[in-house]
């Protein structure tokens, strides 16, 4: 019986040989994968070991392994914060607003660039749209101050000249969120359009030619060919953004917010910066990071399933 079982299964040596020969056959592909895989192993997976300090009272001297366990107290410290609800609310709302406005704007820009017949115009617009992405938020803060400053901003000069009076755009909780969302939109729209533009380039031109022969208008072509043609990419982009729903843009908020707008400007990451990093409470910072990751993962799983059901495609 034992003998027949051995005979019926594939010899281990042969399996290995087959696998090696398969790998050799696709050596180019595997070669290309080495760097990304190494990147994810080193940058994304190895640090997961350190995530255990979320459950520890971390002391640098004792190290990650040597620090004593303290259960969920670091999570509790975050959940006990009187600002927990506003922090989560601000984070999610900024994320959703940036997603809801950013993705359609990037698609529209990509469509516009794709549809335009003027090559020069396309190049100029494309370059101008990409440029803000390369500016840091520090520089953008200067630009925004020049536009919105209460004492010497351009808009307030106009307001005062037209008798409206001074509006403290950057320091008013009613106007600050708009500055956050629209400055992000302006900065990232061009960059975000790249991926959609690439997807548009992949649509078979024959489809458009056939549609033209059938008498379809430009708008109809967009509606029935272009958008369905990039639907998969849209789904992927949206799902990836949903996976990081609790990352509302630390750098931007950190630079732009000030005390009077903390109500609407403080997000989870800025709280973590103040309590976890500046206060050297690394365990709390890690616990909140872990919490954010878990929420992001849950959202990703749920929305991926929804996307597959509704749009017929998902991330995996």
């Amino acid at each position, binding site marked *: 019986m034992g003998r027949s079982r051995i005979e019926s299964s594939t010899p281990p040596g042969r399996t290995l040989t087959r696998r090696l020969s398969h790998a050799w056959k696709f050596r180019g592909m595997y070669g290309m994968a080495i760097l990304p895989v190494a990147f994810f192993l080193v940058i994304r997976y190895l640090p997961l070991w350190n995530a255990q300090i979320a459950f520890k009272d*971390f*002391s*640098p*001297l004792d*190290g990650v392994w040597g620090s004593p366990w303290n259960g969920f107290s670091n999570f509790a*410290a975050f959940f*006990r*914060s*009187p*600002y927990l609800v506003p922090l989560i609310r601000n984070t999610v709302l900024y994320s959703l607003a940036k997603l809801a406005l950013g993705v359609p704007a990037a698609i529209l820009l990509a469509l516009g660039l794709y549809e335009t017949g003027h090559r020069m115009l396309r190049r100029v617009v494309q370059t101008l749209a990409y440029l803000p992405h390369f500016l840091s938020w520090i520089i953008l803060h200067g630009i925004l*101050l020049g536009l919105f*400053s*209460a*004492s*010497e901003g351009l808009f307030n000069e106009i307001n005062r000249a037209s008798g409206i009076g*001074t509006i*403290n755009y*950057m*320091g008013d*909780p009613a106007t600050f969120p708009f500055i956050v969302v629209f400055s992000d939109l302006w900065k990232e729209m061009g960059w975000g359009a790249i991926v959609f533009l690439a997807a548009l380039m992949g649509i078979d031109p024959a489809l458009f030619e056939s549609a033209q022969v059938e008498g379809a208008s430009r708008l109809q072509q967009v509606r029935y060919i272009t958008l369905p043609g990039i639907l998969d990419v849209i789904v992927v982009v949206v799902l990836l953004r949903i996976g990081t729903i609790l990352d509302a843009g630390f750098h931007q908020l950190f630079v732009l917010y*000030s*005390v*009077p707008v*903390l*109500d609407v400007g*403080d997000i989870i990451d800025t*709280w973590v910066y*103040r*309590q976890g*990093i*500046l*206060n*050297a409470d*690394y365990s709390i910072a890690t616990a909140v990071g872990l919490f954010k990751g878990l929420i992001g993962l849950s959202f990703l799983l749920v929305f991926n399933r929804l996307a597959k059901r509704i749009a017929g495609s998902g991330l995996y």
Partner: protein
Amino acid sequence: MNKFKAQAFLALALALCVVIGAGAQAKPVEIELWITGTASEAGPPPADWAGYRIVRETLGIELKLSLLPTTFTDQDMKINAAAAANRLPDILHVNRDVFIKLAKQGLLAPTDELMKKMPVRTKTHYDDPLRNKLAMYKGRMYGLPDPGKMPMTDGWVIRKDWLAKLGLQPPKTIEDFYQVAKAFTLNDPDGNGKNDTYGFGAFIETSDITNWGLGVRFDPILGAYGVAGVWDVTGAKNFGLNVRKPEFYDAIQFVARLNKDGLIDPDWTTLKKDEFRARWKQGKYGIMRENFAALSTVANYPAFDKNFPDGEWIPIPPPVGPKGKSSEGMLYVDTRIHVVSKRAIDAGKGDAVARLLEWFATDGYALAMFGEKGVNYTLDADGNISTAGLPDPDKSYAKSAMVPILQLRNLASVNSDWELLPRYVPHKTLNGRTIRPLEIWRYFTTQPWTEATAALLIEPPANKADFERFYTENLVKFALGQQALTPASWKAFLAGLDKLGAKELEKSAKAKVEEAGLLK
């Protein structure tokens, strides 16, 4: 023959050992130093700075120097990140909050033994028992409390030319201040026909638990009500948070009035220090609290002078409040705490660290303060610093291009007159007026201040982020009028603080200050 070979081999091996040993001995000890540069706008000393060579040749130390970021928060972040990885440098500058955290985490080496190895420095730098207490943790010294910045450097100043133009007298009381600020805002004091000036200029400048809230730029206003600073540490009886006093409410009410009437730059809550300074140099403000050096030295004044050759800032006494109180701000026995990492001592670098620090207090003192003798400075007949007779006047220590080679002054300075006079040299404005920065500073020192050294011992609460936000946010909202300032809302604010642990914080703070023997 074999015996000869063996002897020859042995001799060769011995010679090699000697050579290797000598090489090892000659190899300099690497000391990594993170320090706050003297001038935030300048970079570190260049690679060919004489100090590197001298330290290598005379002390056997290879100095690896990094300037810490210029803002407190960025400094703390850099240090905390290194601490988290147990990768602190050998010597570094820390503020007291960070000092306590690093000491608690066991990352710092005790310094009492180290101090015995640097007798001159200990005598010249660590001779103040009060300052030494600020570098203690659990009764033992874990830091080197070097003399900090000069005391009483920031004070109340006003545009004298604006006063003259509007025919006003310098304000004496807090109400005078309001009226002058109003005139400066509304009556076009610069005569340019535009409504582009503000009576008062400020921004929220906070760094630690002693100055949360509106920050130090508002201290003279709060001082007029007897509540400058977050803490009252003037006595055991009244120890606690100043916000509990009714006068604090009055002070915030006054700031709210200034804000409501548009007498303060409406950007005060969003401005950063550089933007604030750019604005007074552009002639936006008439009254402010400013650092005497930032206001008047040869390096800082020209930008204002160029815009307003006839403009003139003068120091005046801080405003007097309804109960006759006034204060320029909080007075600390200031210290710059340098710490030595436990890692450095464990690596056997203790002696080298002591050698280096002692050198900065002895042979390297003048080099750190003024550069190379005969290159960057000379000495006059009385032994005072001079620039007369320098072969290349462009290399004078007073030239802004030479600032990078003086970035380590904070390791050497003891704030003696010998140091200060040449650092803050008198200079002429474009219209020929002479500005003497030290005179402005001396004026500040003659004004009333609020003793607050003990407040430096107070440790922030565990829920620092929430507590600080609640405290600062509410005060700013009251001042801006975003939140109605009424006795009821103030009571709710105090109740909110208590809910966040204010009473416990006050209790532990008092115990800490009493333990240090600083509470009368």
